[in-house]
């Protein structure tokens, strides 16, 4: 990282080259022939054929965090983890290989290196929840490649909402929490974070989190209380993704709003007033 990787100007096409189902979610791979390698935490605006076909919606493109990126001879293979929650995600989740996407990206501010988050940090504590594990997956791989130590804590509601776990492949060094307790810790992933921060010197932590607003808000509050530095990858409804519409407002700690698409989606936990933003995020 992790300066922001610039996007080519304008929307371009990319084809779906693979698709798999995992739990209730879909992971699809798009081959981006013309774009650069994204930085962990960045996102793309996506749309496909069929946009507009459900009573005129979806109309705007939809934002998706990149979950994995692999450079090949033909371009970058971008992986996205999709939960079908409405007309746009349903369409994207139903795309088959060879389907054409219209994409813009990579966009937004990526995660910082642990040493940027906290110069005292020996490594990273990564916290992912639900569909929000996507950017944690690419961050984790990035840190591993760089030989930077990191612990990963993942939380899921139940089996049906744990499809994102698949992105973490065979690696077993992941702390797991399930709300229904059928695996790992019974409860929230933030319980695991509490424990992790207790063991460590919280002041030397570099926490990274992505997940539902309630989880992010808990992470924010815990880190604030413990004096831990944290970066949160947030969501907000977006029309454009590049600062044009001012739609993606997130309230700042010192008043006013930021535009999450250009000043985020990764934000410093102490920048924002709350991670519970009306209209934003997955349940």
């Amino acid at each position: 990282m992790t300066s922001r990787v610039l996007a080519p100007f304008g929307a371009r096409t990319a084809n779906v080259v693979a698709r798999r189902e995992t739990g209730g979610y879909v992971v699809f791979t798009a081959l981006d022939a013309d774009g650069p390698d994204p930085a962990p935490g960045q996102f793309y605006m996506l749309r496909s054929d069929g946009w507009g076909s459900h009573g005129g919606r979806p109309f705007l493109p939809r934002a998706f965090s990149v979950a994995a990126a692999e450079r090949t001879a033909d371009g970058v293979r971008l992986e996205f983890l999709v939960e079908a929650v409405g007309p746009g995600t349903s369409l994207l989740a139903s795309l088959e290989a060879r389907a054409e996407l219209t994409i813009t990206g990579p966009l937004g501010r990526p995660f910082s290196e642990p040493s940027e988050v906290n110069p005292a940090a020996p490594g990273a504590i990564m916290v992912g929840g639900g569909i929000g594990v996507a950017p944690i997956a690419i961050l984790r791989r990035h840190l591993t490649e760089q030989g930077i130590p990191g612990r990963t804590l993942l939380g899921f509601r139940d089996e049906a909402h744990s499809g994102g776990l698949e992105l973490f492949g065979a690696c077993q060094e992941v702390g797991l929490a399930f709300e229904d307790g059928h695996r790992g810790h019974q409860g929230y992933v933030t319980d695991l974070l509490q424990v992790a921060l207790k063991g460590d010197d919280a002041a030397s932590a570099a926490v990274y989190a992505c997940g539902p607003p309630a989880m992010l808000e808990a992470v924010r509050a815990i880190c604030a209380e413990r004096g831990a530095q944290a970066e949160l990858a947030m969501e907000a409804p977006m029309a454009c993704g590049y600062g044009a519409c001012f739609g993606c407002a997130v309230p700042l700690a010192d008043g006013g709003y930021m535009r999450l698409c250009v000043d985020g989606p990764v934000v410093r936990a102490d920048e924002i007033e709350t991670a519970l933003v009306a209209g934003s995020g997955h349940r």
Partner: protein
Amino acid sequence: MSYEIGSLSLDHPVLNGSGTFDAIAARRAFGDALLEDFPFSAFVSKTITPEPRAGNPPPRLYETPSGMINSIGLPNKGLDGFLSNDLPQLAELPVPLIVSVMATDRAGFERLVDGVGGRDEVAALELNVSCPNVKSGLIVGEQPSETHALVTALRERTEKPLIVKLTPNTADPAAVAVAAEEAGADGVSLINTLRATGLAPGSAEPWLGAGSGGLSGPAVRAIALEQVRRVAAAVSIAVIGMGGIETAADAAEFMASGAGLVAVGTANFRDPGAGIRVRNGLKNLLDDTSTLHLNLRSN
């Protein structure tokens, strides 16, 4: 074919709609590639106000069939912040700058016109009159008389071209356009957004933080085209047509209906390069008079 707004002459007919493209933010996302092939022949800033504004509480966006509602609430740094922070960056753009301004009283508009109009970096001003006059309680742009009075007062204070951004939320936009022309405006731009709302799914409450907002996008194109047709028939100053333009063919319809210039708004959100597509496509259409028998009107 020439593209003029008063004394300002532009290279091609495609502008951006105010508030639908932020050249400073776009440069952060796309880098200097943006400047190498800048989509628009002039850049229209988001509306600024005398004092800073934070904007409306979220959510600020609502998606509708073939369109969207925004209730952004004009977040901006205020006149001073604009002049010190934004203007130097906007001056780096390869095209003339048009600054959109709005205030809720005459004095505020005067401060804006004096402050912005006095700067060499600024080529023209656009008056966003979709605002209440706090004295009369009326929305200026809904009333020919209010518009006439405001433009008359501001006309004296600047030699720069003045464009009046018309609101579609009125019975007779052409009457307002005529009032603007008579008071000395160099151009009118239309349409702004149509008042609209939507509810949170499965709830009885409006989705938008501010309760309601303005509709834009292809859904409003047919309304915009009719208003442009009527306004263009009524005035002889520059007409900048917009409202749901997504393609060069859409833009050509506005030009055939009397707009000398067009602006791309919501389409920028779906494709940051929409302006380039429209501009290039329009160039082909205008060059190839055999394919499209457009009775184009140049100013």
